[in-house]
């Protein structure tokens, strides 16, 4: 365990990607099976333990520490595993430090009732770094800036392989991956159990505004709508026994099939589609707000499925009948996609239409008014344009110069900072989560009503200034939350940008903003000049309505 803990510790502080890959690859080289396989499972998020959960860790620390002191510490550190690792009253003992494989085995097979005692014994035996690593394993997300992709890249580096080759054999493998290591080290056959519906890392786009696009020849590019849903990959095929398998993957490679049984059932083809997950009702695309009601539900009921029927609007065809199309130019893939959709006649999968344009001005006009440019009644669900080079192959990651996104300009309001809370992760110990409000009027005079929360959009330097403002202007403390001065004359105005606003019964203000973030800090503006709630209410559905009319 110490060797693994040391690796995690080094990774956490190493900023350079290549150096991280080297650290992981070195660890794999020096560590025998099955230890390294369990480490790979941990790094790729393939481990989950039925009984060992964050709640159990909290329970253990509560038996050993004052709850108020734990609360203040957790608030300060911003990470459960680290807080407990630091607070754990363990003293260096003669206990044997268990190897990683023993811990994984123990976490998997120990009965629920015995587990807290076993876990406590490990924590006693380990030092602070070891405790942290063990608790990170249990809480699931390592958050050491090393993705699954990075770990697979390190595996590939053990032999002369590309990370994509690992990706393709990956779904058929199980920890501790002994056959995978044997193959990359040239000691064994390539693992054959190929997944018939694997995840293929998606191609991503750069903001068009960041490029000097006016210098591009419009004839080299095509455009299509950027739909406001969830980017997914539908992958399907037949396994060795001839069974048809279909999976839905998120952009980051998470298998989300379980949440969409209705859609999975409909994916009867053999191939892989890159598209947008949307709710369609009577052929009309619903807003992201509607889609959101289908997401993050504990159980997927028939009622939910009937009320929120999900579809895929296809952007791209990556594989068809076992043929990998990703090396081919976009326009060739597009032709194959159009033919594929026409042939399949799948009621759950349709084609994302192209947006024709002769020059950049015409495209800019389409961006401002999608309804007139072909999106019609669906324009409320358009969040901008995708601009793609005609000859672009489908390249993993975010290659330069091939795909661009050209989103709508966000809406903005000037709001007043009311409460701040410390952030987590990278921003822990800074007051980085801001609740802001807009003015209303009641019998007592002008009042601020909270309308939303923002925790990004500012630079690291601005964060330091915001944090300082919060500390200097605190008027009340409620646990981890500080109330800051927000009178008509003393307070801080934040220009908040957001993507949309809808009515919401769950919010005191009656409105909910989508994707709010701090666009600018208005140090120059007194609070009484901030916007009123009516200004925000007037923006409800404005985007969709304006475009639909």
């Amino acid at each position, binding site marked *: 365990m110490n060797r693994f803990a040391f690796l995690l510790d080094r990774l956490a*502080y190493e*900023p350079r990607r290549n150096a991280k890959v080297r650290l992981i690859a070195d660890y794999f080289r020096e560590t025998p099976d099955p230890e390294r396989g369990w480490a790979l499972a941990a790094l790729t998020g393939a481990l989950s333990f039925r009984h060992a959960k964050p709640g159990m860790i909290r329970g253990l620390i509560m038996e050993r520490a004052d709850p108020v002191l734990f609360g203040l510490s957790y608030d*300060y550190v911003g990470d459960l595993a680290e807080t407990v690792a630091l*607070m754990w009253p363990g003293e260096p003992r003669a206990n044997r430090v268990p190897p990683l494989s023993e811990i994984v085995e123990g976490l998997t097979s120990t009965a629920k009732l015995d587990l807290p005692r076993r876990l406590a014994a490990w924590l006693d035996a380990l030092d602070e770094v070891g405790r942290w690593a063990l608790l990170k394993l249990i809480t699931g997300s390592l958050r050491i800036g090393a993705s699954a992709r990075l770990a697979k890249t390190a595996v590939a580096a053990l032999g002369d392989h590309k990370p994509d080759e690992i990706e393709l054999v990956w779904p058929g493998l199980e920890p501790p991956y002994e056959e995978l290591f044997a193959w990359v080290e040239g000691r064994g056959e390539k693992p054959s159990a190929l997944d018939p519906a694997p995840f293929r890392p998606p191609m991503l786009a750069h903001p068009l505004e960041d490029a000097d696009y006016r210098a591009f020849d419009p004839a080299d590019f095509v455009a299509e709508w950027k739909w406001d849903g969830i980017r997914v990959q539908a992958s399907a095929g037949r396994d060795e026994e001839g069974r048809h398998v279909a999976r839905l993957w998120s952009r980051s490679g998470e298998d989300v099939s379980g949440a969409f049984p209705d859609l999975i059932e409909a994916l009867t083809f053999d191939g892989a589609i890159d598209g947008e997950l949307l709710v369609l009702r009577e052929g009309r695309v619903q807003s992201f707000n509607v889609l959101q009601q289908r997401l993050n539900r504990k159980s997927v009921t028939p009622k939910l499925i009937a009320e929120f029927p999900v579809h895929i609007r296809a952007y791209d065809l990556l594989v068809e009948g076992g043929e990998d199309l990703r090396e081919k130019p976009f326009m060739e893939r597009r032709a194959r996609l159009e033919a594929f959709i026409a042939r399949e006649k799948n009621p759950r999968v349709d084609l994302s239409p192209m947006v024709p344009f002769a020059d950049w001005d015409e495209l800019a006009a389409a961006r401002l008014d999608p309804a007139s440019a072909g999106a019609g009644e669906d324009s409320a669900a358009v969040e901008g344009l995708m601009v793609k080079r005609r000859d672009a192959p489908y390249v993993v990651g975010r290659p330069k110069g091939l795909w661009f996104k050209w989103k709508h300009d966000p809406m903005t309001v000037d709001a007043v900072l009311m409460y701040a809370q410390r952030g987590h992760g990278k921003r*822990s*110990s800074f007051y980085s989560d801001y609740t802001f409000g807009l003015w209303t009027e009641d019998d007592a005079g002008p009042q601020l009503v909270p309308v939303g929360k923002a925790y990004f959009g500012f630079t690291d330097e601005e964060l*330091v200034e915001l944090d*300082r403002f919060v500390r200097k202007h605190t008027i009340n403390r409620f646990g981890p939350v500080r109330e800051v001065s927000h009178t008509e004359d003393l307070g801080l105005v934040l220009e908040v940008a957001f993507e949309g606003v809808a009515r919401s019964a769950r919010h005191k203000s009656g409105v909910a903003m989508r994707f709010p973030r701090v666009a600018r800090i208005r140090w120059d503006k007194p609070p009484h000049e901030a916007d009123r709630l009516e200004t925000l209410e007037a923006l409800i559905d404005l985007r969709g309505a304006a475009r639909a009319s």
Partner: protein
Amino acid sequence: MRPEDLLCPSPKGLYCPPADLHIDPLRPVERALVTHGHADHARPGNAAVMATPETLAIMAARYGEAFCSTRRPAAYGEVHDVGGGVKASFHPAGHVLGAAQILLEWKGFRAVVSGDYKRAHDPTAAPFEVVPCDLFITEATFGLPVFRHPDAAGEIAKLLDSVELFPDRAHLVGAYSLGKAQRLMKLLRQAGWDRPIHLHGAMERVTETYRALGVDLGETIRVMAADRKALAGAIVLCPPSALRELWARKFPDPVTVAASGWMRVRARARQKGVELPLVVSDHADWDELRQTILDTGAEEIWVTHGEEDALVHWCGSAALKARPLRLVGYGDEGEAEETPAEEASGE
């Protein structure tokens, strides 16, 4: 009498009405007692200043000889009548060279203002002495149970291991120029590092003051801009803020190191882009804070700059009367690492 009759918070800092003096005043006053030389405690412009001879020398080095009009040196242990029936004495705080706790005695009541303190071994500062008292005013920079500082020698070993592992890279160690830097130099010497230690220009004057006061730090060399490229394998000490400046990038493949109690928390180290965090602190950690409060035997505890809430809560659970003293202007402002106040507080 009430403790507030002897000491009370005021806009200019902690005030003692019977003697009409301030301790570590935030703005210029007539009569000041100063615990130690960090800029958030020792400020220029007071008329008369009483402090240890070392602290007075450090203030003169930092602010110039005219930092006050009258200096009243108070060696550790000497008792001085400061007027109004109040007696003041200075006792080692273990924080940096010359750092003192100030004991005020009045009508049989004893109050100790700790200033900043630590109890861990420091070869450049006189070791902390427990001063029994009725009222103890403690700092709380690291007043949370997650802060438990490891042995400093072990942290120095990490640095030397890294220097051995990467002989082609320069190790840039961010450390506060007064106290931390000199402690690191001395610890490096004790760990057997006998090569010259390279110093950022901002550290030279204080280091010279330490030498003049009898602290042997071995050979140090000021980093000249043109020499940076040639410093592979060297240990370079600089103020924490310099780690992020262009200045730092001209060294051969630099390893960013920081020595601070804050380095205990990973996110803090990562926010600052530190690759090798060393947990070396000149402040008491959680265990030391609690131990010290109990050792003084004080019945009333006032908690200043830092994580007051947790320490006040703990005092309550130990049946001690405690309250936070929210004096603006000390380390509290510096909780966000980058602020100048924190540089001043020496952490």
